[in-house]
């Protein structure tokens, strides 16, 4: 490859002036766009005072909340006095009515609490010894406050008369002279199957099965199997029954809403397509009707119907039905306008009636596309139904939102999210499989 001569360069330049000398605005366009974006972000930063909000956010809570998704804490209070040291648990503890956990070891007036293999607290009336791995801290309990001996390690804090010892994920303890409040954290979901009020609580799977199959009736009016199911269904902290009913509502909302929308949009799309209905006014009116349904957002429909029918899945069905009649109608009429006209002409040429022309000349061409679009909307509506539920339109959305607003039920949130993700995953796959069979290609 040889270098270009000056004359050749000049020749290129004269032939393609727009490449070599673009107008100024074009040359600096990327720079202008970048500057515009930066300006816009700065404006938004000011408009929403993002800086202040982010700075005043309680980020340390994020870790706690995230931990609550997959774990639970058990509280225990150790009261020290020269006569007797007692350990007490809250009334509605995850450990049931008569807790005797293996991580609390009582030996006379000495109480030892284990936070895993190398972490522990040894408590008696005079002092507390906290051990974490190779380090240990002795805290003397004097009448005017807890007094840690020696230098405080990183995992302990002294605040006035209280010492807080942190054992990481395993838990923490607040120590003051009269008592030690222990919070012990475990991975998993507490009492997921049976709550503490149930007679099956705390039994192993084998024991429960044998009670169901061969045990004596616990409640005379119902069999043990029915009782077990009842206990699971009405589990007080997980509310399986309620959650599953609400989840089913969400599924039903998406299913019926999309189905009704498809049924109504199908004939209307024929009216809206200008190659099928030659009447200009009928086309325009139907198309504008679709636009109206689509542009009045799903939220607005949801709020209106919640007001009209009361909270529940009917409102959700109606909202999805109205919005998607508009969207599907638009998509369908556009598909109809792009069909191959030869088949219609063929059917028409043998003297078929107008209805039969559509039935045999148009429908076979568009049906797979229509069905695949409807499936696609069904899939997408399963997601939307969760969100509009939160404004009262039925389904799991509201329950999810309320569980989050309490700030303490993050494990319930995790449970519902897992269920929603499973449902979405299953429906995605069903819809994908059906669609690829309909259109004959992989999505």
């Amino acid at each position, binding site marked *: 490859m040889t270098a270009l001569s000056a004359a050749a360069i000049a020749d290129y330049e004269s032939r393609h002036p727009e490449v070599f000398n673009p107008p100024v605005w074009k040359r600096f366009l990327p720079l202008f766009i970048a500057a515009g974006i930066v300006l*816009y972000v700065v404006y938004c930063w000011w408009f929403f005072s993002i800086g202040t909000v982010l700075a005043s956010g309680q980020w340390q809570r994020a870790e706690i909340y995230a931990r609550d998704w997959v774990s639970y804490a058990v509280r225990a209070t150790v009261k020290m006095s020269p006569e007797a040291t007692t350990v007490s648990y809250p009334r509605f503890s995850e450990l049931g009515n008569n807790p005797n956990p293996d991580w609390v070891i009582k030996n006379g007036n000495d109480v030892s609490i284990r936070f895993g293999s190398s972490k522990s607290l040894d408590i008696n009336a005079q002092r507390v010894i906290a051990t974490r791995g190779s380090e240990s801290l002795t805290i003397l309990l004097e009448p005017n406050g807890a007094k840690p001996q020696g230098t405080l390690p990183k995992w302990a804090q002294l605040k006035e008369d209280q010492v807080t010892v942190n054992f990481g994920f395993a838990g923490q303890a607040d120590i003051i002279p009269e008592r030690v409040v222990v919070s012990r954290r475990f991975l998993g979901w507490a009492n997921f199957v049976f709550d503490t009020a149930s007679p099956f609580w705390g039994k192993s799977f084998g024991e429960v099965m044998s009670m169901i199959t061969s045990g004596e009736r616990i409640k005379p009016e119902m069999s043990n199997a029915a009782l077990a199911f009842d206990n699971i269904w009405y589990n007080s902290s997980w509310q399986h029954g309620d959650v599953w009913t609400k989840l089913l509502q969400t599924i039903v909302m998406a299913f019926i809403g999309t189905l009704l929308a498809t049924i109504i949009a199908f004939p209307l799309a024929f009216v809206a397509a200008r190659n099928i209905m030659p009447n200009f006014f009928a086309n325009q009116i139907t198309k504008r009707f679709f636009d109206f349904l689509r542009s009045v*957002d799903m939220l607005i429909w949801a709020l209106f119907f919640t007001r009209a029918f009361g909270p529940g*899945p009917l409102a959700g069905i109606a909202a999805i039905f109205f919005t998607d009649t508009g969207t599907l109608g638009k998509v369908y009429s556009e598909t109809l306008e792009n069909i191959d006209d030869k088949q219609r002409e063929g059917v028409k040429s043998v003297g078929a009636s107008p209805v039969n022309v559509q039935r045999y000349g148009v429908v076979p061409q568009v049906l797979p596309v229509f069905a695949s679009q409807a499936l696609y909307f069904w899939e997408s509506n399963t997601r939307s139904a969760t969100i509009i539920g939160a404004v009262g339109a039925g389904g799991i959305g509201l329950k999810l939102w309320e569980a989050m607003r309490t700030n303490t039920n993050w494990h319930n949130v995790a449970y519902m999210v897992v269920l929603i993700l499973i449902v979405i995953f299953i429906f995605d796959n069903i819809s994908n499989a059906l669609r690829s069979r309909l259109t004959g290609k992989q999505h």
Partner: protein
Amino acid sequence: MSQATTTTLSPDGIEIERHWLELATRRRAYSWLIGIGLLVAVAGSLWFANDSNAGKFFDRLPHFFEFAGDLVPRDGWEVWRALFDLPSPYYDGSLKYDYPEGRVYLFGGFYFPEYFYKMLQTLNIAILSTLVGFIFGFLLCFLAAKNLVKNRLIRGVVRRTMEILRAFPEIVIAGFFAAILSLGAIPAMFAVAIHTIGALGKLFFEVVENADMKPDEGLRAAGANWFERVGFGIVPQVMPNFMSYALLRLEINVRASTIIGAVGGGGIGEELRLSIGRGHQAKTLAIVLLLLVTIIAVDQFSAWLRRRLVGKQAFAFGGKQS
């Protein structure tokens, strides 16, 4: 021909016809089964929906039109007064007619009507989160494309990350950040932006995988490194498609941020929920009008821009995704 098929069938022909009839019967049976199954599912679903609803469908239907009648304001001008925060002649000290209360004064006597301000807030949530989603989706998508990254592990990790971001319900992200930052526009923004990263990232890497690799080959032959190859070989050809998808996403995000606003994210969604709940006719109609006009304007603008960017191709798709 027709005689040949009806009268003189060879033994093979009879066999074929028998098979065909068998197949046709089975097919019809399946169709009936599917039809009946669907009908049962629909009937069951409708019964269940009606049963678990607070008000029953047929009980509520007469009231439905009553409710629609409740939406009619006292006179037509009320809607405009509510929209532009002008004082109402019906003002009686209640929230229903306190239109001027919501004025946002910019300077002197010049004010921004409340609902326009709230609408701007919602639009800004949508635009900013689309922007954030675009930037992160853009940065991630090249790492997920088969033709640019040969390492399956990196590709897998990036793709799974995007899938998780996309599948997680927006409302959960909003709720989680609301617990940390307190209710407001910023949790909504986080939610919409995080979802957008996943959704755009997926569309983007599919575009990248379909890109023409000849410019890339040329750059590689000239000794360009990975970043130069992506920057000069891939980005220029995929950018129009990226922009088109981002605009499509903006349309969706305007709706999404209205909905999240209604559950506590602020903006126009919240105003609408409150106003419908309290039965303020004029305010409700004003907000619906404003939302309708805004959504149509955004859709039209985006459609126009997409048509300029990628031509007809931008409309091959239904226009809805999530």
